[in-house]
C-alpha cells in the first residue's frame, strides 16, 4: 500500500528542490489517507475534497519545514484533523444526515454487512469533532493513543476516554438495532 519510507524520503528531498515528479509521488502516496480522514470527519465528498486540496496546497508551500516522510505523515494527519475540527466547530449545524448518503464513507471490504455501516454512521454522528478525530486516527490510521495525543495536541487521558466512549456507543448501537437490517432489506 505505502511506498518504502526511504523512497519517499528521497522524493521529499527532491520535491523540496522543486522536482515536480517527486511532489506528484508524495501526493499520490498520501492522498488516500488525507482524503479518507477528511471524508469521515466532514461527512460529505465535496467538503472532503476541498479540505484535501487545501491540505496538499499548504503542504506544497511548506515542504521546506518538513524533515522526513514520517514527519510529513504526522504533519498531514495533524493539519487535516485540526482543520476538519475547526470547520465542524465553525459550522453551527453539521449536516449529519449527509452521512446517510455517503456509502463511500466506509471501505467496501464487506458490502454484505449493512448493519456495520449503519452502526458506524450512528457512531460518527454521535461523536464530537475531537472524539471523531480520535476514533479515525485510532482505527483508520492505526495510531496508538500516545501518537494520537501528539497529533491532536491532546492529553493522553482525554484520548483514552474518547476511545472508551466511542466503543461504548458502538456496542450500544450494536445491541439496539439487531433487527433493523431486515426491515431495511424489505424496503
Amino acid at each position, binding site marked *: 500500500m505505502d511506498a518504502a519510507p526511504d523512497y519517499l524520503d528521497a522524493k521529499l528531498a527532491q520535491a523540496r*528542490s522543486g522536482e515536480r515528479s517527486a511532489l506528484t509521488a508524495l*501526493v499520490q502516496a498520501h492522498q488516500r489517507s488525507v*482524503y479518507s480522514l477528511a471524508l469521515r470527519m466532514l461527512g460529505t465528498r465535496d467538503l472532503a475534497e476541498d479540505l*484535501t486540496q487545501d491540505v*496538499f496546497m499548504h503542504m506544497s508551500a511548506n515542504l521546506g519545514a518538513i524533515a522526513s516522510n514520517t514527519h510529513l505523515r504526522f504533519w498531514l494527519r495533524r493539519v487535516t484533523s485540526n482543520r476538519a475540527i475547526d470547520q465542524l466547530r465553525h459550522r453551527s449545524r453539521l449536516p449529519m444526515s449527509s452521512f446517510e448518503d455517503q456509502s463511500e464513507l466506509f*471501505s467496501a471490504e464487506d458490502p454484505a454487512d449493512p448493519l456495520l455501516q449503519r452502526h458506524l454512521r450512528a457512531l460518527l454522528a454521535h461523536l464530537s469533532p475531537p472524539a471523531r478525530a480520535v476514533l479515525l486516527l485510532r482505527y483508520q490510521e492505526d495510531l496508538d493513543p500516545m501518537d494520537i495525543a501528539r497529533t491532536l495536541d491532546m492529553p493522553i487521558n482525554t484520548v483514552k476516554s474518547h476511545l472508551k466512549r466511542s466503543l461504548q456507543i458502538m456496542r450500544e448501537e450494536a445491541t439496539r438495532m439487531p433487527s433493523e437490517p431486515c426491515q431495511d432489506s424489505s424496503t
Partner: protein
Amino acid sequence: MNEDVESKLRDALRPVEPRAEFSRKLLARTLSTQAAPSKKPKVSRGAARPLVGWFSASLAACLLVAVGIQQQLHQQRLRATGLEARREVEQALRVTSQKLNLAFEAIKSQSTAPSDEKSGV
C-alpha cells in the same frame, strides 16, 4: 466483545480512494502552487557573491587610482606655479639691482663734477 468491535471498526474504516478525476485535479493544483525551485536562487546567490566582491574591489581600486592621479596633477600645478613666481621675483630683483646701480652711478658722477669746477676756477 471489545476486540470484535475494534476489528469491525478497523475493517470498516480502511482508507478509501478519492475519485480519479479529483486525484487529477488535486495533482494539478498542488503542482501549480509548488514553491519555485530553490536551486536557482541558491545558485545565483552563490554566484553573485564573488561577482559583487570583484565588482566592489575593482570599483575601489579605480577610485584610488583616480584620487592618486588627481593629487599628482594638483602637486605638479603647484610646483609649476611656484617656479614661475620664483622666476618673476628673480627678474624683478635683477631689474631693481640694475636700476639701483644706474642711480648710484648718476649720484656718484654728480658728486664728483662740482669739486672739479671749484678747483678749476
